[in-house]
């Protein structure tokens, strides 16, 4: 008789890794900000994986969801700064707003783009981040190109000490929780009909349709889930950690590239993959910036081509294949 908890074993290595990161960051002097960066990559990868990994669709405009999430938090803080009695409630409202805005944008984009297949989808999304940035700047939304700087408001709302702790510690811990939560959701999806449907449509969309799978529905589900997580990552890692938002910075395609590298390197569609990818990427980037500054992108571009041509399933994908049906295998999916 199988243990009832056994489907959840694969979360163990994920949690162990997050916990280890947390311990290292809190206990080894001077490492917290580096841990924070790694946590950001982990959460980014874990969130993107829900869409890119599970559906096999490439969203080149993914960073737009982080961007609107950042705006969600920014709007909450600047808009409610006159009600400092709400305190942390404003931050909570900011997260809700971030999720709502990411959901709205992803629904709008998904409703159009997800009717399209593979290549056409990628083309449709390639301009989402730019398009949205130009809308904000062009229509002068939310201060247009001047962006918002709201450290002062955050200080006012939370008090200087708490605000400072939020910016330097709690924002990062929130990112950790978001990453862990994204992993839990990934696993829940994998173990439910959604996961089976996504696997099927990733492998063969037409066959999946014929099997009775409403592919558009499941794609949109994954898209919105992934986007909402991205929104919260933006709200925590960008808006709370550094209380300002300038449109060109939060819609920069560079972050989509990083997310793609992380997911592909670790193993698209696996649970542990984004985490492993984020750690490999974050740590090697750290070293490269010390020893070979300025060549990170060059090296990572080569790595991506190499990974796609030689082992497209990524590091965890390979381990998963090798350990299938072994005792270790039940921890790695």
């Amino acid at each position, binding site marked *: 008789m199988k243990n009832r908890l056994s489907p959840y074993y694969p979360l*163990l*290595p994920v949690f*162990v*890794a997050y916990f*280890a*990161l947390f311990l*290292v960051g809190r206990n*080894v*002097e*001077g*490492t*917290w*900000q*580096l*841990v*924070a*960066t*790694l946590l*950001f990559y982990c959460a980014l990868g874990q969130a993107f994986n829900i869409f890119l990994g599970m559906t096999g669709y490439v969203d080149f405009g993914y960073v737009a969801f982080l961007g609107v999430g950042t705006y969600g938090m920014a709007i909450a803080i600047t808009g409610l700064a006159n009600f400092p009695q709400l305190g942390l409630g404003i931050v909570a409202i900011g997260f809700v707003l971030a999720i709502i805005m990411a959901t709205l944008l992803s629904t709008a984009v998904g409703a159009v783009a997800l009717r399209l297949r593979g290549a056409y989808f990628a083309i449709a999304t390639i301009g989402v981040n730019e398009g949205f940035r*130009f809308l904000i*700047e*062009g229509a002068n939304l939310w201060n*247009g*190109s*001047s*962006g918002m*700087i*709201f*450290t*002062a408001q955050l*200080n006012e709302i939370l008090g*200087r000490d708490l605000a*400072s*702790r939020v*910016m*330097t510690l709690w924002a990062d811990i929130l990112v950790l929780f978001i990453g862990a939560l994204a992993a839990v959701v990934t696993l829940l999806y994998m173990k439910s009909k959604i996961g089976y449907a996504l696997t099927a449509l990733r492998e063969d969309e037409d066959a999946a349709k014929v099997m009775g799978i409403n592919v558009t529905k499941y794609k949109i589900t994954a898209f919105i889930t992934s986007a909402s997580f991205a929104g919260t990552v933006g709200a925590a890692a960008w808006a709370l*950690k*550094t*209380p*300002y938002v*300038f449109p*060109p*910075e939060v819609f920069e395609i*560079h972050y989509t590239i990083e997310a793609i590298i992380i997911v592909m390197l670790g193993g698209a569609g696996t649970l542990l993959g984004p985490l*492993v990818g984020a*750690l490999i990427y974050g*740590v090697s980037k*750290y*070293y490269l*910036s*010390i020893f070979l*500054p*300025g060549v*990170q992108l060059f090296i990572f571009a080569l790595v991506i081509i190499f990974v796609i041509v030689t082992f497209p399933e990524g590091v965890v994908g390979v*381990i998963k294949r090798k350990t299938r049906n072994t*005792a*270790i295998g*039940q*921890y*790695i999916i």
Partner: protein
Amino acid sequence: MKFFSLKIILPAVLISIIPFISTFSAFAAGHGKIVIGHSACLSGKYAKAGEQAVGGIEACVDWVNNEYGGITLGGKKVPLKYKKYDCESKKESVTSLIGRLITVDKVDVVFAPYSSGLTLRGAPIAESHQMLYMDHGGANNKIFEQGFRYAVQTIGPATSYHKGTLDMVKKIAPDAKKVALAYEDSEFATMVMEGAKNHAEKLGFEIVFERTYPKGTTDLTPLLSAMKAAKPDFVLGGGHFEDGQLFNRQMADLNINVDCLSLIAAATLPAFSDALGHMAEGVMGPSHWEYGVTYSKEAAKEKGKQWIGPSQDEFVSLFKKATGDQKMLPDYHAAEAGAQVLAYVLAVEKTGSTDSDKVRAALGDLEFMSFYGSWDIDDSGLQVGHSMVDVQWQDGKRVIVWPESAQTGKPCYPMPTFDEKKDGKKALP
């Protein structure tokens, strides 16, 4: 079974810990020296400015240690050290590196990276460690409206960029009435535009055209066509390096001739004239500092201000020594970063301590002059003492034409038309 899984997790965890462990061996600031920490932009989009800043800082640190003899602290001369990391012009790296500078390297002061965004990114970390945070590359005025207690600015605020140019036109061409403003739509340039607009209105100019264009534009033709129709006497605009070249080039393409064209950021760089050749003749640009300014010990004495630091020529040779590149001249990024070192040195000597609170207080009262010009901050940390210079391309060379106290040549006004320039006419006064 758990054991097996550990077999995989352990190495992964270990590998991820390596960078943290290596931090133990990192350089740690001890007694007997004062350390400046800097998260510099040596690669990425701000690499050019970052390289200049590092050169400027190293030149001035060199001067402090070898010419000045070190910082006088408690009756002893203490050497100044400089510790930098490359933040790749990315905000994720800025926080981790500033965190590391403060907690591992235990530096005494942190110099912010280039640009307003990255400066803002690092500020909360410095604040939370009560660490003095000096800004040499973030010109956005709003940084100093956020209530940071430890942030201090050396670069002049964005709103003051085009004030000098307007003053100049007002003085030398009383007939010029119509000004066109066309800036990049970015947090920095729109702030410059706002400052220019207010000042132009104050001086009684008529603003006949006021538009922006987004970052990354590759064709300004429609905007410039509309500007041409407004028939301005002179044009102020720009944003960054890239669009400045485009702006000037397409004005030439559309044959838009005005009496004066001043572009921020781009026009003062050698690459501007390299790319545009004769089309750049007579074009102006404001700069925080330019080689050739006439700030000197004597000038300081006249104004009754304290003087510190190398002379301009000394600075240039120290800069060349620091960068190891004989051909590269320091620009304003280098000068303002260098001047920041000098401000810090003076403040430490004045208060006799490296404690951030005390140094910050001393900086608040400090007023001095160096090769970079005057330095003075207000209560929020905003730079108010420094004034900018205006540079004009005359016969392929950069000439400082404004303010009159710093000028190395007279301005050429009005500048030749594009057709005249094509025929070889130089913009000489």
